């Protein structure tokens, strides 16, 4: 019995090692396939070699593959490795944990399960973060990167604009979303009405920005206005406004794009929260003498406060990181600069590695308090349940 047990354990250990080896080898092969422009064709050619179809293998090596099938092969390979591979890894790790003395076995197991996720997080999140902080104080002017960028006119402009964005875009989206969610709650075809508000969220920011850039277009007075906004403005007999060039209208015009995109998100989340407020609560308030507006401000809004905070912080983070809208419409010109666009410019236009990194760190520091608020809100919600 005991001997049998020991043998079983040895066999399982062997299988576990074999599994890890297979996945490791597959990962190595994948890396080579992915880093090599002909990777896909060579992978297939290798497969042909194994099954003995030398002719096909040679032909493939000579002529290569069409780009589309090549991408598909890589995609399939990645999917296979991601699904089957992770399954094998977890199974193998689990088998290894079974060999740990029983005293520690169950306290070790959760960490082993979390290990692959932590590994990926470290690789793709923690490492870049640390590296960015490191570059920000070593590259370019080193430690004086920070005083330098803080003294930079463009960065200062970007900081002020980001603050405007944070307040107006976040506030606007949440407020509009909240009001629309409450009003649509009484609409007969609520789902349809909500779909229209929600739709823009499906658009990419770049797509939305391109649309709005056309809408904001300006032609000198006297010429036909092809932008819908200025067509309306001249239609009522006013002078056309160079919307994307006039300060400060331009920043608010860009913020409007963000609000248009994010209102749908705020509305959907808040609408669900509003439906979660018990009817009895609203009826009690009505009987207590509250008008519909008072029911909304004094009962519904306080009741859904956690949802409002969640939506606000989520949108606030998205707004702080805003880049695409500014990049596509004005490129940061005419005093519309924002932090993320500044970072992009320093990094890829001027190749100032250190300055770009220190701007990235600055942005990270701006997002931190918002994330902290969000976490605190989550914890409070959990405590309430």
């Amino acid at each position, binding site marked *: 019995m005991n001997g049998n047990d020991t043998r079983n354990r040895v066999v399982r250990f062997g299988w576990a090692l074999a599994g890890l080896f297979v996945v490791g080898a597959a990962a190595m092969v994948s890396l080579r396939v992915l880093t090599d422009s002909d990777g896909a064709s060579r992978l297939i050619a290798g497969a042909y070699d194994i099954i003995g179809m030398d002719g096909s293998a040679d032909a493939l090596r000579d002529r290569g593959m069409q780009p589309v099938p090549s991408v598909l092969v890589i995609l399939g390979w990645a999917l296979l490795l991601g699904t089957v591979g992770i399954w094998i890894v977890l199974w193998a790790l689990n088998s290894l944990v079974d060999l740990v003395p029983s005293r520690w076995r169950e306290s070790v197991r959760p960490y082993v399960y979390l290990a692959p996720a932590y590994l990926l997080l470290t690789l793709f999140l923690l490492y870049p973060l640390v590296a960015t902080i490191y570059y920000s104080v070593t590259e370019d002017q080193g430690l004086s990167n920070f005083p330098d960028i803080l003294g930079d006119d463009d960065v200062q402009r970007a900081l002020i604009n980001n603050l405007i964005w944070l307040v107006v875009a976040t506030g606007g989206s949440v407020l509009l979303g909240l009001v629309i969610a409450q009003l649509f709650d009484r609409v007969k075809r609520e789902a349809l009405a909500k779909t229209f508000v929600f739709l823009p969220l499906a658009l990419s920011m770049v797509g939305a920005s391109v649309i709005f850039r056309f809408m904001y277009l300006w032609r000198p007075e006297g010429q036909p206005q092809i932008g819908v906004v200025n067509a309306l403005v001249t239609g009522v007999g006013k002078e056309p406004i160079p919307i994307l060039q006039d300060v400060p209208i331009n920043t608010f015009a860009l913020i409007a794009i963000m609000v248009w995109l994010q209102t749908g998100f705020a509305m959907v989340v808040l609408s669900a929260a509003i439906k979660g407020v018990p009817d009895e*609560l609203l*009826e*009690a308030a*009505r*009987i*207590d003498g509250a*008008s519909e507006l008072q029911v909304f401000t004094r009962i519904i809004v*306080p009741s859904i406060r956690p949802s409002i905070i969640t939506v606000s912080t989520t949108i606030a983070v998205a707004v702080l990181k805003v880049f695409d809208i500014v990049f596509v419409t004005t490129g940061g010109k005419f005093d519309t600069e924002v932090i993320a666009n500044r970072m992009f410019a320093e990094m890829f236009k001027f190749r100032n590695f250190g300055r770009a990194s220190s701007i990235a760190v600055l942005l990270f520091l701006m997002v931190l308090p918002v994330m902290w608020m969000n976490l605190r809100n989550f914890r409070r919600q959990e405590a309430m349940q």
Partner: protein
Amino acid sequence: MAEVVLDKINKVYPNGFHAIHDLDLDISDKEFLVLVGPSGCGKSTALRMIAGLEEISYGEMKIGDRLVNDVEPKDRDIAMVFQNYALYPHMSVYDNIGFALKLARVPKNEADQRIREAARVLELDAQLEKKPGQLSGGQRQRVAMGRAIVRQPSAFLMDEPLSNLDAKLRVQMRAEIARLQHDLGVTTVYVTHDQVEAMTMGDRVAVLKDGYLQQVDTPQNLYDRPSNVFVAAFIGSPSMNLREATLDGDEVVLGQFRLPIPASIFEARPALRSFDGKRLIVGIRPEDLEDLERVPDPEGVVTIPATVSHIEALGSEIIAHFPLDAPAVDSGDPDAVEEIGEDTMAVGRFDPRSRARARTEIQVAVTMENVHFFDPESHLAIWD
């Protein structure tokens, strides 16, 4: 302080469901009226129509002489206690109680005085700063009451306010609410499905079934003179035994037994004579059945022989179940647990010193003076 008058009130939902039919109720000032009935009888709908939370399809509703059909709930000067209390979770107990006063712009110090007075009456003084989430079920119930009484409204509406409390607390709060209502003298409409609450709390009780008002009367009259089979079965626990029988001269034929009807019953129910030779429904309350051995003066008592099926000894009494060879009658109460059919047991409430046990054969004495009679077609009580 006002009377509440419902004049031929109807509720028809958009899907065509007719929830309330021609409901007439005349609730006088300071009266405690209980609306009772099985689930789905329309009692809550009726209450919500008084509150203004449901629209009245047709009919007239008056609170203190004022037609309120089209008056918003907030302008009806009524206070309501909800089944789940509906306390505002983000407000302290103090703010919950004072919310209505705040909305009504009652001056701060007067409001404070009233809130503290209500809290004192309900023994909530120590809880005023707490949030509803920190309170026990009983305390929440009290806050809901406080929210109602602090407004000094012209009527209280209560929708099963005790159904979420445990049995012991319920009995305690039952007495407390009844006392409070009496002290404050505010017209109250109280909805419950619990007939014990209805009987113990109400000045009058209105029994509803399927949206139709069955009977409105004082608890004792409902019990002694139920107007139909449903009321007879619904009021009283355990329920009245209802069986099909035939009237044969001065005797009622119940299964194989012939029970003589005393002259007093024919006097009280002159119409009974017209059922001679016809079918009718006999109703016997469990307390009118007794183990013959426990009857002090067994001379001339009407008895039925029976084999006890099982008993429930409650200490103060013994509930005995025994088969009775006569078809049981369905009273139409959807909440009735017992299955109606040939096997329905008759139920007797015996003296606790009875020696009746399962499978013993006993003689059951019937107090014929208290037996009820109903028309088998209309289910109405046979009086005159």
